[in-house]
């Protein structure tokens, strides 16, 4: 449940590839920048280090792998992120989610499973530079449960 105001992601920002609402793509999409999908996509979407946003007009029948995924439209397929899945009001997702964090607004429709995975450990360099970073309480909780399960 989120009380934050409804934010529409900005599709035209620099460094974001856009699939407009009149575009239909069948096949595999790989991108090294953020991706905004407001059209139809059938296949796979992969943007490992970046954010994928499915706009309100987006209709996706594809598995999605990205750092973050924001869904405002319709997705049928599995979603895997290294960081966060954000399912907004009026969005529809049918598929399984594997992620570190998840947010679902009231009014969203989700049918599938949620598997919380342990975030990948930070490189050891941080420990030599200064104090090791302490996880925030929420992250610590997810990490602990993930460890117990795995």
């Amino acid at each position, binding site marked *: *449940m989120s009380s934050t105001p409804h934010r529409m992601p900005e599709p035209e920002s620099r460094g974001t590839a856009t699939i407009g609402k009149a575009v239909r793509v069948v096949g595999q999409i790989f991108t090294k920048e953020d991706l905004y999908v407001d059209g139809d996509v059938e296949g796979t979407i992969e943007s490992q280090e970046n954010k994928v946003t499915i706009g309100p007009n987006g209709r996706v029948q594809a598995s999605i792998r990205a750092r973050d995924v924001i869904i405002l439209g319709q997705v049928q397929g599995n979603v895997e992120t290294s960081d966060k899945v954000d399912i907004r009001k009026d969005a529809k997702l049918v598929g399984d989610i594997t992620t570190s964090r*998840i947010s679902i*607004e009231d009014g969203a*429709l989700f049918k599938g499973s*949620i598997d919380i995975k342990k975030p990948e450990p930070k490189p050891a360099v941080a420990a030599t530079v200064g104090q090791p970073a302490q996880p925030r309480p929420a992250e610590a909780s997810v990490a602990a449960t993930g460890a117990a*399960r795995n």
Partner: protein
Amino acid sequence: MLPEKLRAIFRKENGAVAHSGAGPRYSSPPAGVSARKVTKKDGSTIRQSRGLEQFFFDIRDVVGLSVLDLAGANQDNIDFLIDLGHKVYTQDLVRSIDEAFGRDMAEQANASRIEYFLKQNFDYPKDTFDGVMLWDSLQFMSPALLTATVERLYEVMRPKSYLLAFFSASERVTEVPSYLFRIVDNKTIHLTERGMRPTGQVFNNRNLEKLFGKFGSVKFFLTRENLREIIVRR
């Protein structure tokens, strides 16, 4: 020595329990929840649930379980189950009933539609779930759909797993309110009404024991809201 009023506040006022289990795990209620039932300004209700409490007692101290929550995806339930270390499966079963059959109860007797409904909503491998939270969804099913759904649930639940379901205890009503259920803590739920719906049949203890006859055991909790909360052991 506490005055009678204060003693009444602290006194545990649980519903009648047909078969009592082992001592449940109690947690402190959240701020603002000191009574068994609180009605909020928006008309929603927060109340304690012995059934929910027993459900989480039964699956306590284990992480990594697969739990099917049929209340529909909401952040509260997902956070609660994930924080316990479980894998969550979620869908809105009442909405799925409407999508498959509409509001006409007679449509729920159609065998091919029932098969399609089960394929769409319970297409899981055998022995997938360690816990299933059905909430009030079963009472909106016709006898044919209900029997088929319970049989399918038996298949997808692991032996010794648990199921939570709510039924109206009134044998005279033909319509009951449907709710959205949010977990507040291990024994407290937040209910938001989403309209009246016709019930498929009368659900008394005998009917429910017969319905879940294939399962290991059925435990009943009768609430002040005239509701039967049941825990069924596979």
